[in-house]
């Protein structure tokens, strides 16, 4: 759905301007036994790029696209259950739908459809992101949502968080709709994060470190994990036979002070290729990996009269290939050393949180292809894109 930008902005300003500053989320409460909070989120994007996007329509385009229209409820029931139900109106898809049994802090149980415990950026709420788009590794390599059960909790005076679960598949990031490509089956995933200096009262108190792993088996086929630019154009076609174990590993770190925050993450995904060589032997695993480092600076205080303004920048890479290093790289579907490609992305961003409901973000993005011939602009290794997002959320 596309709306003219001035109309949407006017609507948002009228809505927010008429809202009392202290207004709360619409909610229904039945004593301490039931709480139902109503949630809604609308995001409108204007974006343009020197390169074609996934649908080849956004090259130097500038129209508004309503990216998300989500409604949902969340709350607590019978003191020990948390729940969330979220529905995407545009795609007509259920998003998070789960029940969380939270009687014990050290051991809580969750069941339903929710994000696999993997990745810092991927598990950050869309309303809290420092940039319009999640990092490439989070969008492409982290699993995303799936149906499953997990146990999670906090230990050592909240210094250690853990979550481990079993899921039907390996997440919707690796399972695009209308695709004949293969994805992981039953998936085990676990994530551990620590805040070693929590409560220390020093600058190190906010330091957060974490690691995660997810394992599944992939049937014979071409991988559904695809190499895509920020706007969705392909830069490596992933037409390589895979079969066997899929392993994701991730490392994460975050630190913040009153005005500054830094965050970094590394994700590696390998797919075995059992019996896929020309002699029906094993090939080296297909490899997708990348990392990012980002930093933000709060220009103004959060409760200032004009809202909070934050500047941010992020550098990231996303690479596809294989673990083999011997021999000539080849585009064959059965090559041991796969001719891969990588995307290096620099993003400059600014966020303006007008109030608790409205947020405006602008990003300027530069992408550079290692092998431009596989990218969206074969004759040009680097290109710029820009995006503006207006978000309204309750």
């Amino acid at each position: 759905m596309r709306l003219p930008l001035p109309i949407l902005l006017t609507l948002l300003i009228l809505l927010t301007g008429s809202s009392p500053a202290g207004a709360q989320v619409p909610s229904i409460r039945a004593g301490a036994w039931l709480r139902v909070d109503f949630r809604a989120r609308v995001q409108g994007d204007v974006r343009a790029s020197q390169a074609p996007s996934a649908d080849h329509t956004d090259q130097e385009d500038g129209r508004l696209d309503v990216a998300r229209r989500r409604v949902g409820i969340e709350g607590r029931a019978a003191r020990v259950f948390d729940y969330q139900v979220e529905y995407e109106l545009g795609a007509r898809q259920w998003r998070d739908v789960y029940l969380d049994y939270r009687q014990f802090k050290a051991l809580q149980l969750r069941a339903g459809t929710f994000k696999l415990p993997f990745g810092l950026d991927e598990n950050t709420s869309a309303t809290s992101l420092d940039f319009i788009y999640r990092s490439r590794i989070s969008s492409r390599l982290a699993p995303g949502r799936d149906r499953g059960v997990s146990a999670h909790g906090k230990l050592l005076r909240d210094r250690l968080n853990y979550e481990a679960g079993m899921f039907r598949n390996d997440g919707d990031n690796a399972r695009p709709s209308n695709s004949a490509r293969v994805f992981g089956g039953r998936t085990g995933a676990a994530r551990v994060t620590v805040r070693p200096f929590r409560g220390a009262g020093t600058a190190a108190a906010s330091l957060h470190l974490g690691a995660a792993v997810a394992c599944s088996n992939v049937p014979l086929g071409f991988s559904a994990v695809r190499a895509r630019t920020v706007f969705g154009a392909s830069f490596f076609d992933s037409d390589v036979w895979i079969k066997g174990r899929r392993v994701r590993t991730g490392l994460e770190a975050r630190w913040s002070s009153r005005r500054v925050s830094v965050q970094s993450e590394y994700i590696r995904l390998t797919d075995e290729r059992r019996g896929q060589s020309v002699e029906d032997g094993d090939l080296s695993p297909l490899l997708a990996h990348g990392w990012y480092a980002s930093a933000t600076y709060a220009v103004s205080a959060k409760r200032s009269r004009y809202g909070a303004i934050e500047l941010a920048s992020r550098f990231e890479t996303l690479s596809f290939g294989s673990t083999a290093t011997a021999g000539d790289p080849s585009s064959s579907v059965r090559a041991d050393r796969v001719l891969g490609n990588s995307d290096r992305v620099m993003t400059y961003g600014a966020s303006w949180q007008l109030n608790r409901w409205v947020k405006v973000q602008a990003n300027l993005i530069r992408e550079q292809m290692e092998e431009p011939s596989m990218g969206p602009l074969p004759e040009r290794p680097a290109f710029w894109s820009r995006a503006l997002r207006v978000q309204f959320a309750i």
Partner: protein
Amino acid sequence: MVMMMMMMIPILLVALLAMPAAAGAQTPDAVFANDTLQEIRLSIHSQDLRELRERYAEDVYFPADVQWRGTRVSNVGVRVRGLATRSAVKPGLRIDFDRYVEGQALFGLRSLVLDNVLRDPSLIRERTSMAFIGRMGQPAPRESFGRLYINDVYEGLYVFVEAIDTDFLARTLGDGSGYLFEHKFAGGFYGEYLGDDYEPYKLRFAAHTHRLESDTMLYLPLRDLFYEVNQDVDGVWRDRVSRYIDLPQVVTHVAIETFLAEIDGFLGTAGMANFYLYRPDNVGLHRLLAWDRDTTFQEVDSAIFARVQDNALFRRALAFGDLRALYLDTLAECARVAAADRWLETEIVRAHLLIRDAVYEDAAKPVSNEEYERAIASLVSFARQRPAIVLEAVAAAR
């Protein structure tokens, strides 16, 4: 002791002389050497091999590794090739060494054709004909006989053929930068004018070089060629046609085909077939390059003007006295070259002795061993009789 040393000296000398020869063997010439039976081993994933045989009618590439003697080339592209000879049982194959790895080659060869020669019960027509064409001074692909193994299973005797590509053009004509077209069979085409639209020409002449250029750049000279060919033969016909094609070269090409009693060539029974056209640049003259000669050595007494009247270009060309004389001279020269020291007969017998065991073991060939022997005998007979028959016909035609 002294005697031993005296004996060792010539042995060492021979060894030293042989060393550079061995190093020099790593060239395309070694793959096409005809003093030994070659051998190529392909490794193809079992699933791909199954699919290759199931989809043998399509030009689908599959990855493979190639081994020739001690040299292995990985990640090459292999597909089934051919028109009438397409087969799932004994597939004719094309290997493109650089399909998946940029610049990859086998001793400089970027492509290699493995011809299953299914239409030839003797299996030696193709290789012998090309050797003869080369002996007549015309560009011809290098060829050799070889066993093909796929996943260590013997697939049969094949003819390994040098692909007609820019490397071939550079080797034979000194320059491969021009426009190369492969004639594709699309119904009987006898050189008639196909109209102003480029499509009928694109259908019959597949561009192998300069593919990204416009249709006008590629096909305008071809369209104009056939337009001029089909005008009345008058005082300007030859000048106009000679702006587009090398008529003496065409006459020479066809004369050799005629001597070899080819039925599926430029004057083929079903129209023009089995040749490439090469134009050195956008204003240069087209010339013919021979391809696929496994239907030669047919009727030993076939007429020297057989099917000449069917072809729009050749019929008109032979109306000129000097071109007709060139045609007859070339036929006579073919007869002399074939008969000199019984060259053609010797070639046939030599090839037969080289491949006989491999042919007998070839369970995929469409003929019995007895039929193979009879075909060889027929070729030997052809080689003995054809020169005299042609010389007699040429004398009668003068």
